[in-house]
């Protein structure tokens, strides 16, 4: 018993002693996010809870995605060019030092690539960006690195954005909990599960940012995050919910879009008229400004305007219940079982929209208007993820819709199009016929190999085909996100704010 | 009556208990007084209100539901009913103290006896070290052996008599003027009773304190008190000098009460066991040992307790065999082992020549019909959830072939009448009856299967004197009608004298003496029997 008491007292002592000052000094900011990090390594560059702390702040890559225009911009590499053999040469920025005092050299770049793309470590850049690509990095001279890929990657400068450049001191075969990088901020402390502190790096190669110290904390309740800015416990709160938002809060168009996948394994969803009717039946505009943020916009393709490849010429399925009913009648006449009960699955407890339950209820009511009976089933995440794989489709199941969202983190439409429409992906939605599948695969592959305007044209063509002819989904909205900031700071959110908080863009009042 | 001013006067005291069930007038206009150094006995049966007036002296009535509606309790010139908390503190324990019937439940089980004695003094501003020294002294005075060693023991480690001695030590710690003793010996064994009474007498002689002695036992009152108050249904029916009142009671109820008391001079049954008759039940070498507890390594802690050692005896048809012994003598174990309610370690019980210990299942159930049991506490032995009909019919419901289902109610009603209850009462629940009536129900249930042997395990011990006599009469009558044998287990020797044919005396699990009642009572052979009988005489004088 004495032991228990002493453990408890010790715990209490630790908890009470570790009291970080909340009232921030000038130059210090506190940022509250919805979720905390599990790891602290650039390896996890796609896990937003980790990446938003480290990327651009502690860790930098050769390039950076232009947050507004898309495409690659210089960071640790000042320039790059493609050789005739398809490999790329990156010129390194001179005079850059890592936080441990060692200089940025081609060797460190090679080391970083080897580490991040090591199968055994299973890092995000390997899984998300370079899967199926052989990568070889080598030093050419003291300030140039050659990166060779097989197959040739026309958008490699964009892809290398995901590979953080770390010094040789970073452990090779395990994840680090004390990351070192070249960024404007030094990783200072990770108070296991309560906060992460970054302080300004005195010897940063670039312009000195205004914020001297940043503390990241996390709360999962949106209302709590909002309240923390109000009472001065935080300077910036991410993902404020629609209901708590007020006029002074900042809104931004995120790179995320919401959609409802139509699995065409079961009739009547194998009839394109039914899939079109699903689109026509939804009065998406009616929800904007009522249930949804007034600045939210209608989606019509898998990527938003900030992504390379976005095609502004694609149309919209405007609300047209008459057309929807006509299409359904036609389909019914052709033998499609329109009356089958339809099941829509979504992830339990997650919220693509602030009031997702109500949005789904509204959609179901609208479909009911045209005679489709849909019920929503919220699945636990693990179950959801296995249910959406084609190999797991039950041949006897009801026609199924999947409420889902998609976030393009690369700035290039290729990743989105390939994973959502190419038959090699286990969760993609495909045309009804084998010929259609073959044609679409070929189109996508040609786009992936192309660059520049050609690439943009092919991706645009693929997305137009999907929208006008294949109709594998109901396009919903390009999402808007809300952040709340205190009066102490100035911050303009951009489409990548959900993934990256670039502390250098924060200025103080 | 003495001319001296009374130490304490109760005047016109009335107490009501207000419950949701209505108002019970527990005490009505009761007056009595006690002189300094005097012993006053308050006598009455359960529900007579004899304890209520004395509880009021120390303000121990639970209020609510109790409410004092009239009267005064004068202690000197102070009305004890009007004291505030701090005045009360100066009286309780210091000037007036009290001991209770059940010495186990009167001691806090969680605290050492020493601390409980000391506390009685420290609360009255006696310095702790003095109090401790005096507590030790007190414990020795009341006869706790090795008092210094046992100072830190807990109540459960003492025997019943010792606990009552500790209670007395607590009560006399501050040298009170008055001790209220509420049935202080009723829960104790005969020999212990005599010792405790002697102790109280000695203390009184030494300190000169007055004692108010509440009891249901007229013999105890006779030898212990100089004045007596007899109560019935909340009122005083008779009061005066003890010898006077007991010799010439005026009131009807008082006469009946005194008449029902066991008469120490009652004639002894002249039963002689007829030779050569086949026994109904033969018990041979019945033994039962409760093994000592073992610690986690399997080592025994303490010793095994032999509750029953090689008990052998016979019961003839139509015979009353009484088993007497003090608590812990193994008499209840004998009853349970005999009925196979508890497994014996060895030995045999033969009913009509069939060994019960070798039977099982339906065969055993068949034999059970012939042997039934009546327990001590009729409240506990009757299920509160069943109606009397269900209780009386339970044997027939279990043994479906005895009485056809359709006739069970009528048969039960006949049984009710047989045990002296009205047939329409069969629809009630047990708690709606008085204690004596409940025991009649229990007897009815035991008789339902027309058994040939009924074991009565202290079947009348919990009952008031007058009720006790009625139940014994009933048993005698039933025995005559039905030809029953009784195995009657009791600690009350006085009762055995008039009721038994045969007596078995038990001590520490062993039968020390067995014989016809007149032999055992008039010519006891075993020293233990002799000491038991001597205690009985000391009590009744």
């Amino acid at each position, binding site marked *: 018993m004495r032991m228990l008491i002493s453990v408890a007292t010790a715990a209490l002592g630790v908890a009470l002693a570790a009291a970080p000052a909340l009232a921030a000094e000038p130059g210090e900011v506190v940022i509250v996010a919805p979720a905390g990090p599990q790891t602290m390594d650039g390896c996890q560059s796609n896990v937003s809870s980790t990446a938003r702390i480290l990327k651009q702040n502690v860790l930098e890559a050769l390039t950076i995605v232009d947050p507004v225009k898309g495409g690659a911009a210089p960071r640790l590499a000042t320039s790059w060019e493609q050789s005739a053999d398809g490999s790329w040469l990156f010129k390194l920025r001179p005079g850059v030092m890592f936080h441990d005092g060692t200089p940025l050299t081609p060797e460190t770049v090679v080391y970083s690539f080897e580490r991040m793309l090591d199968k055994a470590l299973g890092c995000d850049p390997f899984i998300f960006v370079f899967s199926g690509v052989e990568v070889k990095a080598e030093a050419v001279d003291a300030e140039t690195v050659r990166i060779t890929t097989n197959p040739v990657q026309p958008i490699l400068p964009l892809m290398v954005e995901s590979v953080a450049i770390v010094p040789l001191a970073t452990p090779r075969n395990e994840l680090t909990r004390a990351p070192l990088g070249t960024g404007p901020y030094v990783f200072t402390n990770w108070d296991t599960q309560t906060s992460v502190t970054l302080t300004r790096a005195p010897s940063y190669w670039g312009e000195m940012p205004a914020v001297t110290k940043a503390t990241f904390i996390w709360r999962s309740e949106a209302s709590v995050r909002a309240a923390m800015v109000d009472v001065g416990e935080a300077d910036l709160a991410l993902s404020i919910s629609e209901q708590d938002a007020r006029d002074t809060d900042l809104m931004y168009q995120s790179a995320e879009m919401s959609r409802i996948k139509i699995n065409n394994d079961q009739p009547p969803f194998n009839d394109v008229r039914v899939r079109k009717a699903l689109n026509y039946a939804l009065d998406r505009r009616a929800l904007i400004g009522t249930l949804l943020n007034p600045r939210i916009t209608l989606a019509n393709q898998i990527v938003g305007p900030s992504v390379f490849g976005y095609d502004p010429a694609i149309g919209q399925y405007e609300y047209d219940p008459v057309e929807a009913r006509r299409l359904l009648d036609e389909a019914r006449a052709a033998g499609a079982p329109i009356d089958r009960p339809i099941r829509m699955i979504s992830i339990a407890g997650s919220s693509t929209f602030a009031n997702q339950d109500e949005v789904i209820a509204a959609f179901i*009511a609208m479909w009911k208007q045209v005679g489709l009976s849909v019920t929503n089933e919220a699945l636990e995440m693990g179950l959801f993820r296995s249910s959406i794989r084609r190999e797991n489709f039950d041949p006897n199941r009801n026609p199924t819709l999947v409420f889902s969202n998609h976030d393009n983190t690369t700035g290039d439409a290729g990743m989105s199009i390939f994973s959502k429409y190419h038959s090699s992906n286990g969760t993609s939605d495909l045309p009804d016929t084998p010929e259609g599948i073959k044609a679409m695969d070929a189109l996508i592959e040609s786009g992936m190999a192309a660059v520049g305007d050609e690439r943009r044209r092919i991706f645009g063509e693929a997305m137009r085909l999907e929208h006008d002819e294949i109709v594998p989904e109901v396009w919903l909205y390009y999402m808007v996100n809300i952040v709340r900031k205190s009066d102490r700071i100035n911050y303009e959110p951009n489409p990548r704010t959900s993934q990256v908080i670039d502390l250098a863009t924060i200025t103080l009042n | 009556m003495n001319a001296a001013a009374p130490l304490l006067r109760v005047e016109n005291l009335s107490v009501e208990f207000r419950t949701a*069930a209505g108002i019970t007038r527990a005490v009505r206009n009761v007056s009595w007084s006690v002189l300094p150094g005097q012993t006053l006995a308050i006598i009455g049966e359960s529900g007579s209100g004899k304890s209520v007036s004395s509880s009021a002296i120390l303000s121990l009535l639970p209020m609510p539901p109790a409410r004092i509606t009239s009267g005064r309790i004068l202690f000197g010139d102070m009305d004890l009913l009007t004291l505030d908390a701090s005045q009360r503190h100066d009286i309780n324990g210091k000037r007036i103290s009290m001991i209770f019937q059940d010495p186990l439940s009167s001691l806090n089980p969680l605290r050492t006896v020493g601390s409980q004695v000391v506390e009685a003094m420290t609360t009255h501003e006696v310095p702790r070290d003095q109090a401790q020294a005096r507590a030790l002294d007190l414990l020795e005075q009341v006869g706790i052996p090795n008092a210094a060693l046992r100072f830190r023991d807990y109540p459960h480690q003492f025997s019943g008599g010792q606990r009552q001695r500790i209670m007395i030590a607590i009560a006399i710690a501050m040298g009170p003027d008055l001790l209220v003793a509420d049935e202080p010996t009723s829960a104790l064994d005969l020999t212990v009773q005599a010792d405790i009474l002697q102790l109280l007498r000695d203390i009184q002689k030494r300190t000169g304190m007055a004692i108010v002695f509440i009891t249901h036992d007229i013999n105890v009152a006779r030898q212990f008190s100089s004045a007596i108050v007899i109560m019935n249904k909340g009122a005083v029916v008779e009061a005066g000098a003890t010898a006077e009142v007991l010799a010439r009671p005026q009131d009807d109820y008082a006469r009946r009460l005194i008449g029902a008391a066991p008469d120490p001079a009652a004639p002894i049954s002249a039963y002689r066991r007829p030779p050569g008759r086949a026994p109904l039940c033969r018990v041979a070498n019945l033994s039962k040992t409760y093994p000592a507890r073992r610690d986690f390594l399997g080592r025994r802690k303490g010793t095994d307790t032999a509750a029953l050692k090689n008990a052998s005896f016979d019961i003839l048809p139509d015979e009353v065999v009484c088993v007497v012994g003090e608590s812990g003598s193994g008499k209840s174990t004998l009853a349970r082992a005999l009925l196979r309610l508890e497994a014996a370690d060895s030995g045999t019980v033969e009913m009509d020549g069939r060994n019960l210990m070798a039977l099982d299942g339906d065969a055993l159930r068949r034999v059970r019909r012939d042997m039934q049991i009546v327990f001590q506490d009729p409240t506990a032995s009757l299920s509160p*959830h*069943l109606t009397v009909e269900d209780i009386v019919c339970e044997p027939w419901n279990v043994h479906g072939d005895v009485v056809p289902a359709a006739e069970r109610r009528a048969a039960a009603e006949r049984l009710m009448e047989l045990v002296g209850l009205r047939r329409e009462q069969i629809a009630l629940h047990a708690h709606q009856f008085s204690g004596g009536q409940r025991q009649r129900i229990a007897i009815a249930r035991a008789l339902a299967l027309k058994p040939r042997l009924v074991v009565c395990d202290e079947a009348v011990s919990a009952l008031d004197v007058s009720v006790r006599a009625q139940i014994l009469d009933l048993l005698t009558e039933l025995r005559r009608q039905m030809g029953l044998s009784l195995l009657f287990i009791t600690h009350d020797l006085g009762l055995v004298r008039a009721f038994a044919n045969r007596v078995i005396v038990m001590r520490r699990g062993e039968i020390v003496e067995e014989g016809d009642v007149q032999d055992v009572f008039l010519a006891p052979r075993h020293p233990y029997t002799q000491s038991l009988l001597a205690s009985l005489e000391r009590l009744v004088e």
Partner: protein
Amino acid sequence: MTETETATPGLRQRVLAGLAILASRPGAALAFLYLLAVVAAAIAGPPFFADSAEAIDFKARNLPPLSLEPSWHYLLGSDSIGRPSLDRLLVSARSTLLISLVAVALSAAAGVLLGLVAGLRGGFAAAAIMRVCDALMSFPTLLLAILLLYVVKSSVGTVVLVLAVSRLALFIRVTRAETAEVRGRVYVTASRAIGARPGWITRVHLLPALVPTLVTLFAVEVAFTMLAESSLSFIGIGVQPPGVSWGLMVAQGRDYLATQWWLSFWPGLAIVLTALSLVVVANLMKTALDPRQKWRLQM
């Protein structure tokens, strides 16, 4: 005492006696009336209000309580798509009640059975049951919930099972303790002396003695199960839309606490009142079920 008095009272008399008991106890009467209302809502709610509860009306969004426009349905306010809180409350009474009742009933049935075995048998069976009982105490409810989602595949069924299993240990322990105690009572020994079989003893003596305790426990557990169900909804594995329950409504309304407080206030209040009423009525029932205490009610 006459024949007529001792005759078994008819249903009419019983009901009248019951009403008389309630009339003299305003607190208990209110609790009883409230529970009646909840049961009525559970029976009549879905058929009468299912449509209006789900009707989306953007013109009637976010109405505060006491709105009589556009209709009395909006007395308790409405949510962000104009569904009236009152109707939703009435409709979800059924599933709320069913989930907690069925869950606790399952739990009680299994718990009492196992508890009886453990209490009567002793030995290996008892030891095994009690060890599993201890293990259950530390078994994470969440894991159970997710596991069952794989097996049962329906959220309501899962919730019921999860809640049932999570309360199982309590019922086992209480039943075992009571059984062990009652088994030692003298009237049970008396029954054994008569020759009664264990089945008879269990039926006639043990169960009636257990019932008052179990009734109280049952009522309290129903109340706490409603709360537990709401917590499951909060972390996203409870009842899921389009299913409805008070717990889910409270959980859904949490994002609106600063603005539309009534969305979670009313269902929360309904749960609290149900819990309180159940406890009050259970105490009354406990008294009524004990023949020794019953007279207290007849005053």
